[in-house]
C-alpha cells in the first residue's frame, strides 16, 4: 500500500533584481495534495511590501484609508475567485475547474495563502497551468509534503510547455500524475 505523497521541491534563488526595478515580483509556493477525489492546492503568493501597501488601494472601497473587515472579506473573496479562474487543470480534453475551498490567510511576510480544490472524477494524468503566473511572474517553489497514510502517490513534473523569461518562471505548467491503490 502506498502511504506516501511524492512531491518535488525546488527553491529557486533568483534574485528580485532580475527585473527592472519598478516591477514587483510575486513569489509563489504551491502545495498539492489529494484528498478523497479532490486535488487540493494550497497557493501562496508572497508580495513585496511595496506591492502589499499599494494593493490596499484596491481594497479600500470607501477611500477612508482604513481596511474594514467587510472590505477585506469582499476583496479577498473576489481575488480568490479570480485566481481560481486562472488555474487550469486538464486531462486530455476534460477540464476540472478549481473552486475556492477556504478563506485567504495573510502572513507577516506579506504572503497571501489561498486554498483551492478540484474534483478529479478519477482523473490520473493531469496538466496544471497557472495562468496567473503568465502575467505576474516570479520565483516558483513547489512545497514538499508530509507523508499522509493511505493517500495516493502524487508525482509532479515540469511540463515542456513551461516557459521562462529573464531568469524566472514565466508560465507555470506542470504534469501531475496520481497513482491510487487498486
Amino acid at each position: 500500500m502506498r502511504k506516501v505523497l511524492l512531491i518535488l521541491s525546488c527553491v529557486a534563488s533568483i534574485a528580485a533584481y532580475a527585473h527592472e526595478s519598478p516591477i514587483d515580483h510575486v513569489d509563489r509556493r504551491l502545495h498539492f495534495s489529494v484528498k478523497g477525489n479532490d486535488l487540493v492546492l494550497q497557493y501562496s503568493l508572497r508580495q513585496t511590501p511595496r506591492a502589499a501597501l499599494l494593493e490596499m488601494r484596491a481594497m479600500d472601497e470607501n477611500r477612508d484609508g482604513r481596511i474594514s473587515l467587510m472590505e477585506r472579506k469582499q476583496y479577498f473573496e473576489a481575488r480568490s475567485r479570480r485566481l481560481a479562474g486562472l488555474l487550469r487543470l486538464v486531462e486530455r480534453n476534460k477540464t476540472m475547474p478549481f473552486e475556492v475551498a477556504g478563506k485567504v490567510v495573510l502572513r507577516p511576510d506579506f504572503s497571501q495563502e489561498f486554498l483551492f480544490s478540484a474534483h478529479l472524477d478519477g482523473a490520473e494524468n493531469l496538466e496544471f497551468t497557472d495562468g496567473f503566473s503568465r502575467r505576474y511572474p516570479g520565483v516558483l517553489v513547489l512545497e514538499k509534503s508530509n507523508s499522509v497514510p493511505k493517500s495516493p502517490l502524487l508525482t509532479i513534473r515540469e511540463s515542456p510547455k513551461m516557459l521562462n523569461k529573464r531568469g524566472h518562471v514565466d508560465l507555470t505548467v506542470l504534469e501531475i500524475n496520481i497513482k491510487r491503490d487498486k
Partner: protein
Amino acid sequence: MTRVLQSLALLGCLPLAGVSAFDDSASTSDLVHRLAESVDKGAYAPSELRKVAERGGVAVRVAADLLDESKPERASVLCQLIARASRNRNAHEELLKLYDPAAHETFYTEKGMATERKIGAVLDWKEWPPLFQAVAIRACPRFTRAWILKRTSDSSDQSVSRAASLIEEWSRWISFGNERQHRGTFLAMLVSMAEGEAMKASIRLSTSILAGIEHAHGFSPCCGSSGWLERRTRKVPEELRGKSAETCPLLGIVRKALSDGSPLVRAQACRAIASFSVTFPNEALELLLKLLELEKEDVVRARIGSSLASFPQDQRAGAAALKLFSGSDNAIVRREILYAMAKTKWQTRDAIMKEAFRSPDEGVAGVAMSSVTKEVGPEIRDRILSISKGFKDTSPDLVDALGRLGDPRALPYLRRCLVDEKRAVLRAKVAMALEGIEGGDTDKLIEEHFIRESNRDVRLQLIRVASRRRMQGVVPTLLDLASDHEAADDFRAEAIWGLGNFPGNRVESLLLNLSMSRGLSALYSTLALTKLGNPYASAALEQLFLAGSPSERMIILALLGEARKDHPLVQRGLNSSEFAVLLGAAKAARQLGSEKYRRSLAKVSGDPHVKALLETGMRDVPTLAFYLREEKL
C-alpha cells in the same frame, strides 16, 4: 534553461518521500523554543532563524520571553530573530493590522509595552548582544526612548556611548524612511538630550544628536528632494518646529553647535542646518554664511559648500559658493561646491566653473563637467570645446558635457571617439551625446557609424538616436529589423517603436501587419501606430493593456507619455493598485501636462495609500514622487 527549470527537471524524478516541509502547522512558539534549544545545544542553523523570522510579531513576543543574560549565544541569535521579525515596524499601520496583527498589537497598543519591556531589559545588561541597537529601535522604541532620556545627565563613558549608538541607529532607521510612529517623540528626545550634561562632554553624542535632527527633521539621503523635505517637515510637531527661528528648539541646538570648539560637531551642524531650508530658509542660510566668514577648517568648509546646495534659488548662496571656491586650494572643498552647484540656479555658476578649469587637478575638472548645461555662457562653452580639441582619450565626463552643450563644433572629438574608442560602453555614451547635436553632419556621422559598428548595444543606441532624430535614411534598416523574426527582441522592439516616427504607407502597412501578430511585435507596433495617429490603434492598445502584465502595461503608459499621446489608459493607470502601472501612468500624465492630468495627479497624491507609500524610502518611490509632484530627484 533557468535554475528554476533545471531544478524542476532534476528533482522531478527523485523520490523525496517522507521529507517534511510546509511546516506551517508548527506553532510559532514551538519554532522559537526549538531555535533557542538548538542554539543552547550548539546546533543552530541560520536557515532555521530565517524561517522563524517570517512569523513576525508572534515570534518577537515569544523570543522576548527567552532572552537570558546568562546565555549570551542564545541571546545573540534571538536578537537576530527579533531584529528580522520586527523589521515590519516600518510597515503602514493598516498593513500590519492585515498581515501581522501581533506586531500591530506590540507596536501600536499599550498592551504591547509588556513585550517592549522584556526586550528593553537587555539595555541594562552588562554586555549587549551584537547589533542590539537595531533590536532596540525596531522592537522596543518606546522603552528605548525612555531609557535614553534617563541618561540625559549621565556623562559616564558607557552611558554616553550606548545612548549615542542608539541615536545613530535610530537616525539611520529614520533616514531610510522606516519610522512611521515616533519621529516627533524622537526629536523631542533629542531636544531633552541636548539640554543635559551628557552632550556637553561628548563629541560623539553631539554629532549623533545633530545627525538625528538632520534625518528626523527633514533630510533623507535616499529621497533628498525638496518636496520630500517639505512633506517631512510638515509632520514635525508644532512645538518642535517653533513659530519663528528664534523659538525653534531644534534650530537652537544647531545654532549652538555651529560655534562648538570641535570641527566635527560644526561640520555635522552644517549638515543639520540643511533640514531647515524649508521652514526657516533665511535664518538657516544666514547662519551658514556667518560661519563661513570665520571658518578655517577644511572639513567644515567642505560641509558648508555641500550644504549651500539646499538653497538652489538663493543668489546669496551662489555668491558665497564662489567666494569659498576662489579662496580654497583644497580639492575636496572645491569638488563639494561643484557637486552642490549642479542643480542650482545660481548666477555664479559660470564663474565657479571658470575657476574650476583654471585649477582642474584632483578631479575638479571632471566634477565641473557634470554641471555643464546648454545654458552656460560663451566663455565656458568655448573652454570646453577647446578642451575637446586637445583631448586624446575618451573622457565620459567630457562626452556627456558636450552632449548637453549640443554644439556641432564638438563633432570632430566625438567622431574620433566613435571611431577609435575600443570600449563599447563609451561609444554608446558618444551615441547618446550625438542625439542632442543638431545638423546634417551629425546625421551623416550616425549613419556612417551605424553601418560599421560591431557592438550590439551601441548599434541599438544608434538606432534609437537615428529614429528619434527622424533620419529618413535609417527607415530601410528599421523596416528590415522590424520584419526580421530572427532578430533579438530588444532590436526588434526598438526598430518597431522607431518606425512610429516615420509616417507613410509602407511603414503603416508593415506596422498594421505586425499588430495582428502576438507578443512583443504586436505591442510595439500598436504603440507605434498610436504614435502615428492611426485610428485602429486606440482600441487595440486597450485590449493589449487589459491582457498585459504590469510590465507591459507600464511600457504602454511610458511610451504614450514619451509620444505625448493622450489615451484613456493613462487615467486608468492612475487608478491602479500596481506600482509599475501607477508609475508609468504618473510619468505619462506628467509628460502630457494638461490641466486634466494635473488635477488627476493631485488626486493620486492625496490618496491615503499612495501618501503612505510616499512616506517610505522604498525603491523607485522617489521617482513616483517626482512625477506626482514635480519634485527634484
